[in-house]
């Protein structure tokens, strides 16, 4: 376990270092951008020194990393606001959005995939497969447009965009629901295919036949024996899809004018606000690595054969 945690920490370090270096390649000197029209060579040099931009790259990174471990992601060159605070605020929108998206996609994919598998090659299977194909082809943000048009504009059940804050939890959830559904439709379509093939695979196993020989119906055998065994490949897929979900959330935030990490990222890129970009990408990377870590651990819980091996 400690070894895995160590690898997690190391990956995080390496990833953030890579992003750090990459961002320094950005054309455009932050000092110049900040000073704008007052950017004389002397002023620029002075500001660079003040901001620590003239130090060697590895030193700059270490300073940043040292702070980051304590949650101090620095102060934005552009807005002079604490990067950490900005990110924390935006996370209030993005994190619930991503989680809701994931949960809803499972709620869509599991029943559909299981139904398709149990009605293998019959009508329900064909319909689910068709839905899958369509869902994979539709851009998530366009699904957002359609949902807005239908449910917000025409029917008025949900707001068309914007986000208040969590002091009004019901309102907040309503604001997040349509975006989460846009994400979930696409992710759900992808996952449904995997659920279907995982269930089909499991139904062919010998122990399902044994279960039926004991007197269980196919359905009972699937429920009590099959699903637990199908969980491992599914968890793998979930882990892989998580990063795509996060990125999809970035795009969807723009459709619904949600003040989340995605919009902050795009603004910061436009403003050459390096520290903000650095902070956001690091947080995103951490989210992905954490989920990978979690799936890894879950394997050992789900499959007792792996416990013996370690």
């Amino acid at each position, binding site marked *: 376990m400690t070894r895995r945690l160590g690898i997690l920490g190391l990956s995080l370090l390496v990833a953030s270092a890579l992003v750090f270096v990459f961002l320094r390649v950005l054309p455009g000197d932050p000092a110049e951008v900040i000073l704008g029209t007052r950017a004389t060579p002397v002023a620029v040099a002075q500001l660079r020194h003040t901001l620590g931009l003239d130090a060697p790259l590895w030193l700059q990174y270490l300073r940043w990393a040292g702070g980051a471990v304590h949650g101090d992601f620095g102060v934005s060159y552009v807005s002079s606001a604490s990067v950490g605070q900005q990110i924390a605020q935006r996370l209030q929108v993005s994190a619930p959005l991503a989680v809701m998206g994931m949960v809803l996609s499972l709620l869509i994919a599991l029943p559909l995939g299981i139904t398709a598998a149990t009605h293998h090659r019959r009508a329900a299977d064909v319909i689910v497969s068709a839905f899958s194909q369509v869902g994979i082809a539709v851009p998530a943000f366009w699904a957002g447009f359609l949902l807005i048009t239908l449910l917000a504009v025409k029917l008025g059940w949900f707001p068309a965009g914007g986000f208040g804050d969590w002091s009004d939890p019901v309102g907040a959830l309503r604001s997040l629901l349509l975006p989460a559904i846009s994400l979930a439709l696409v992710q759900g379509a992808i996952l449904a295919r995997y659920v279907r093939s995982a269930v089909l695979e499991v139904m062919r196993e010998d*122990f399902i036949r044994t279960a*039926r020989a*004991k*007197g269980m119906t196919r359905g009972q055998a699937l429920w009590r024996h099959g699903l637990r065994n199908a969980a491992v490949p599914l968890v793998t897929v979930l882990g892989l899809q998580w990063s795509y979900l996060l990125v999809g959330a970035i795009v969807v935030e723009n459709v619904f004018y949600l003040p989340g990490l995605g919009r902050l990222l795009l603004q910061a890129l436009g403003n050459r606000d390096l520290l903000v970009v650095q902070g956001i990408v690091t947080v995103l990377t951490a989210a992905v690595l954490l989920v990978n870590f979690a799936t890894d651990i879950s394997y050992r819980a789900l499959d*007792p054969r792996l416990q*013996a091996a370690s």
Partner: protein
Amino acid sequence: MTAVLEARGLRVVVNGVTAVDGVDLELREGSRTGLIGESGSGKSLTALAMMGLLPEGVDATGSVAYREQELLGMRERDLCRLRGDRLAMVFQEPMTALNPVMRIGDQVAEAIRLHRPVDGHAARAEAERLLTEVHLPDPAGRMRAYPHQLSGGQRQRVMIAMALACGPDVIIADEPTTALDVSVQAQILALLRELVEARRMTLLLITHDLPVVAATCENVMVMYGGRIVESGRTADVFGRPRHPYTRGLVDAIPDAATPPGALRAIPGTVPGLGRFPSGCVFRDRCWKATDKCHEEPSLTKEPQAFACWHPIAGGETAPAPQPA
């Protein structure tokens, strides 16, 4: 003695290929019957068809009756009540036949709770008792073990325990020892025989291994190409076979006295499914085949039934083997 389980004209077609071609089979109460056949003879499908466990899309026609109740075409719900309770099956590969993520004790207890209104506690107690009955070492400890922590022989004992859980009338064992080491095979067979006799069950033992049947079963049926070609008492069928295929099978068993290089194989190979000849299924490998054999021979009457136009008489043996 009444027939507990019988099949009449059982036919199983897979993808247009007839794998089981009109099999008649009768198991008398308390009897131990062996079903011998090589791979591709259709013996496993016969067993699965009788239990109603054929894969999706594969259907059986004909009749299978358990104590006069017709099983083919019975509603799945009713069939589920019989399976596990009155009719039990033991499979070949205990490693894959047990759920790898579920504890042994829970799997055995489940077999009980499916058919008996007992609580978890009572079921587990009974499960432990069953594990003792099948001579599993350290039954109490094993209850919480997972399948991969047991040896092949131990897993098969667990499978047998699960099959016995509700005290069934009939046990069908499909190659129960084929995947096990030779030394363990004898133990498992002895266990089966002991339990079947003690509980007065009816046993159908499916295998390709003649000595296994000889040791365990009083009756035997020989299957080839989806059909029963000979049946009767084991001693008679193996001692004085009437069908050339049976003769070939018996001759092929090497014993301690067989000189090296003198293995007697049946010439040719088993044709793939769907490629058996018309008429007598064995005629393209049989040394006694004539034109008459283009006509399908029917099974003669008991006690030693055979399906052959030119049955073996007296001490007739197959011609000397060709070099392999």
